[in-house]
C-alpha cells in the first residue's frame, strides 16, 4: 500500500492552512508542518510558551536559550512577533483565538474524541502539557498521524481505548493514507492517496467511514 512519508504528510497539512491563519503546531510530527507552509502566505505560528510570530530554527551558533518553542528547541521571532506570559498565551488558546491547531494522536474516535497524551500504561509517567487546552480551544483541531500503529492497528477507532485528551474536539484527520473529516454523519473521507480504493481504506480502518462524493456515485 502506497503511503505518504512524514514529509509528504506535513506538506499536505500545510497546503490547507490559509493566509493570515494563527496556528499552533503540536510537539512531534506537527512541528514538521512549519517547513512546508506556502511561502506566499503570511501565517502566524503561536507557541504556548508565550510567542506569536515564531520563525524557523536559527542558524547554527545563533541559538538563544531564552527563545525556544514548546518542544524546547531553539527558534526565532519574525518581524511583527511578540512575547507574552503564560496565562495570556493560554488565553489565546482557550479563548478560541487560534484558527488552527495541528496535533499528533494515539487514537481518534468516530465522534472526534482525541487521545494523545497518555498511554495509560501502569509505568507511564503522565504528561499533558498544553494538549488539552489546544484541543478544546482552537477553532479547528487538525490531527496528523500515521493511519496505523507499528503493529498495524487502526488509530481511527469507534471508541478510544487510551485516556482522552478531549471529547469530540477533532475536526479533521490527516493520515499517511487519507484526509478524513469528522462530521455529524460520521467520518467522511475527503481524499485518499493515489491508487488507494475506499474499500481498501475501510478495510484497514477500525471505524465506519463515509465515502468521498465521487465514490458515492460509483
Amino acid at each position, binding site marked *: 500500500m502506497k503511503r505518504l512519508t512524514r514529509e509528504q504528510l506535513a506538506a499536505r497539512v500545510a497546503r490547507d492552512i490559509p493566509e493570515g491563519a494563527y496556528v499552533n503546531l503540536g510537539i512531534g510530527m506537527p512541528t514538521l508542518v512549519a517547513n512546508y507552509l506556502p511561502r506566499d502566505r503570511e501565517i502566524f505560528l503561536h507557541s504556548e510558551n508565550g510567542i506569536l510570530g515564531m520563525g524557523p530554527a536559527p542558524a547554527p551558533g545563533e541559538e538563544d536559550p531564552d527563545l525556544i518553542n514548546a518542544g524546547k528547541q531553539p527558534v526565532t521571532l519574525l518581524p511583527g512577533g511578540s512575547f507574552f506570559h503564560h496565562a495570556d498565551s493560554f*488565553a489565546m488558546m*482557550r479563548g478560541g*483565538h487560534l484558527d488552527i491547531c495541528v496535533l499528533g494522536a494515539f487514537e481518534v474516535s468516530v465522534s472526534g474524541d482525541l487521545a494523545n497524551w497518555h498511554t495509560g500504561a501502569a509505568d507511564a509517567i503522565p504528561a499533558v502539557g498544553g494538549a488539552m487546552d489546544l484541543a478544546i480551544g482552537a477553532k479547528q483541531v487538525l490531527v496528523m498521524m500515521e493511519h496505523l500503529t507499528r503493529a498495524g492497528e487502526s488509530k481511527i477507532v469507534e471508541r478510544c481505548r487510551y485516556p482522552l485528551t478531549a471529547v469530540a474536539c477533532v475536526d479533521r484527520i490527516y493520515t499517511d493514507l487519507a484526509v478524513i473529516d469528522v462530521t455529524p454523519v460520521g467520518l467522511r473521507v475527503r481524499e485518499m492517496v493515489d491508487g488507494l480504493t475506499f474499500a481498501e481504506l475501510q478495510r484497514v480502518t477500525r471505524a465506519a467511514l463515509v465515502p468521498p462524493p465521487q465514490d458515492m456515485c460509483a
Partner: protein
Amino acid sequence: MVNKTVASLQAAVADVPDGATIMIGGFGVAGQPSALIDALIAQGARNLTVINNNAGNGERGLAALLKARRVRKMVCSFPRQADSFVFDALYRAGEVELEVVPQGNLAERIRAAGAGIGAFFTPTGHGTLLAEGKETRLIAGRPHVLEYPLTADFALIKAHRGDRLGNLVYRKAARNFGPVMATAAACTVAQVDEVVDVGALDPEAVVTPGIFVHRVVVA
C-alpha cells in the same frame, strides 16, 4: 500579505448591525475611540447594547451616541458623573436601560470572555444589591458570587500605535479597557494615532498581539 488596516473610519464600522453588542474602550475620555464612535453614529446602527466603564461625558463620543438614541442598554460601572447629563436625562426618562457592574467584575468578565472561562467566583459584590439573585458559594470560608463572561459583537478601542498585523501599543492610562476588550469581541476595531511598519513595535512591549485585532484605522 495580511493587511488589517482599513482605509476609512466608515469602512471600519460599516457592518455593525442593529441590535449589536458593542464594547467601547476608555475610562472617561482617556482611551475612548471618539472617531470610531462618530463613524458609528454616521453609520446609523440602532438598538445597541454598549459596554463601557462610564455612560458618556459632555456631548461628544459615547455621549453623542446616546444623544442620537442609538443605545438601548448601557452596561457600565460608573454612569453618574459631573458631565453625564445626556445619559442622566435619557435614564430618568426611561429611554435607556442600565446594568451597573462593579468595575473589577466588568474588567474580569470581559477578560473571562477572551480567555475562555465559563464563569468565575469572586468576593466582589457579595451581600450587595449588585449580587441579588446571583449564585453564591462559600470558598475557603469566604462568600463568593458567580459571575459570567461578557462578550460582544464588536470592540471599538483606541490605541497609540498599531501595525498592519494588528499589534497594538497604548499610551499611558489610555490603555485601560482596550487590551481586555480586544480579546472579548468577535470583531475588534482599533483606532490608532499612527500605523507603523511591521517590526517597528518592540516584541517585548506589544500590549495587544495582532491575533486579537481585526481592523486598524488611523484617526
